[in-house]
């Protein structure tokens, strides 16, 4: 006869409930622990703890894995991609592109900044929300459009810049894609703002450069913003209900 979880030793599961609440929310965690406790009456304490551990992993693995992937992706971008840009792009510093000096600032810098932000945003949204999510699809599309800006060829950079501008304008005009653009923009602006602020504080107040710490803090806060705003994407708008049920 397996040893069951009785109400007398429920207090021992309080830390387990607290931990589960960190990944699932307190209401969900209470209900899950209740279900597991009820099932453990006939299946035993060992079953309870195995089921609890598996549930904790099932519900909580995505966020830490996505965060680590985002950090790794940014490190790859900083170490490999920007190194290549610095190496090959040096020969084309004087190039002005197809649209002249003034347009170069926008057409080359805009996709460059967007691509840098997407290096951490895309792995995060892909792991957290899956490939069918609109946020993932938009991030993937924008990265594919902006990544050619890292080539040294002026006409490729021009083309990438024009396509990026067109994609953003089109997304803002289409009701289905407007919210994902806003969420991605909010995530990216937060990341840039926090990383810049952290770097400024560390260098001016503490007089040392912990660049990696700045990036990690910036990305962590940006991803919290992204997770918070993601629920907004799932709120169906009245105009789309007909499409959904079609």
């Amino acid at each position, binding site marked *: 006869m397996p040893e069951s979880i009785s109400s007398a030793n429920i207090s021992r599961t309080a830390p387990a409930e607290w931990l589960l609440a960190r990944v*699932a929310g307190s209401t969900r965690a209470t209900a899950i622990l209740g*279900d597991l406790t009820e099932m453990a009456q006939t299946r035993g304490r060992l079953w309870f703890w195995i*089921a609890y551990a598996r*549930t904790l992993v099932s519900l909580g693995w995505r966020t830490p894995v996505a965060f680590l992937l985002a950090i790794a992706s940014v490190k790859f971008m900083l170490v490999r991609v920007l190194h290549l840009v610095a190496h090959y792009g040096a020969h084309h510093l004087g190039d002005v592109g197809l649209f002249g000096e003034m347009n170069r600032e926008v057409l080359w810098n805009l996709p460059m900044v967007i691509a840098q932000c997407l290096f951490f945003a895309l792995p995060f949204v892909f792991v957290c929300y899956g490939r*069918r999510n609109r946020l993932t699809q938009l991030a993937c599309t924008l990265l594919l459009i902006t990544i050619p800006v890292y080539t040294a060829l002026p006409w490729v950079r021009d083309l990438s810049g024009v396509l990026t501008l067109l994609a953003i304008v089109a997304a803002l005009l289409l009701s289905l894609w407007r919210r994902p653009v806003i969420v991605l923009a909010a995530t990216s602006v937060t990341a840039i703002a926090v990383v810049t602020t952290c770097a400024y504080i560390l260098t001016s107040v503490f007089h040392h450069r912990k660049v990696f710490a700045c990036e990690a803090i910036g990305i962590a806060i940006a991803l919290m913003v992204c997770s918070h705003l993601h629920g907004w994407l799932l709120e169906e708008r009245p105009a789309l209900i007909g499409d959904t049920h079609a």
Partner: protein
Amino acid sequence: MNPERSLGEFEQIVLLAVLRLGDAAYGVTILDEIAAKTGRNPAPGALYTTLHRMEDKGLVTFRDGSPTPERGGRAKRFVTVTREGRNALASAQSAYQSLLQGLDLLDAKLFGGAYA
């Protein structure tokens, strides 16, 4: 159909189990119903992950029940399929039915015949 509303196989199984159970659908009874009707024993974590994802998509909603002693004083969370969830399930099942038409797959299995 909105791709974010398309349903996976396990999501359909869970929705069908919830609909069969009616007002009595919560974690324990859903797992028991799935085991009884499909022969599968899904892990509780898989069920909760699926339920939470469907809640985020608006396919199911939850309502709290009363706390009970056998649950350590914790309340049940009963699951209800929303109109959107029913529509998504009907759409997915309709696709299966369309693909099954003309195959006589169920008859062949029932009578152990031609396709065995």
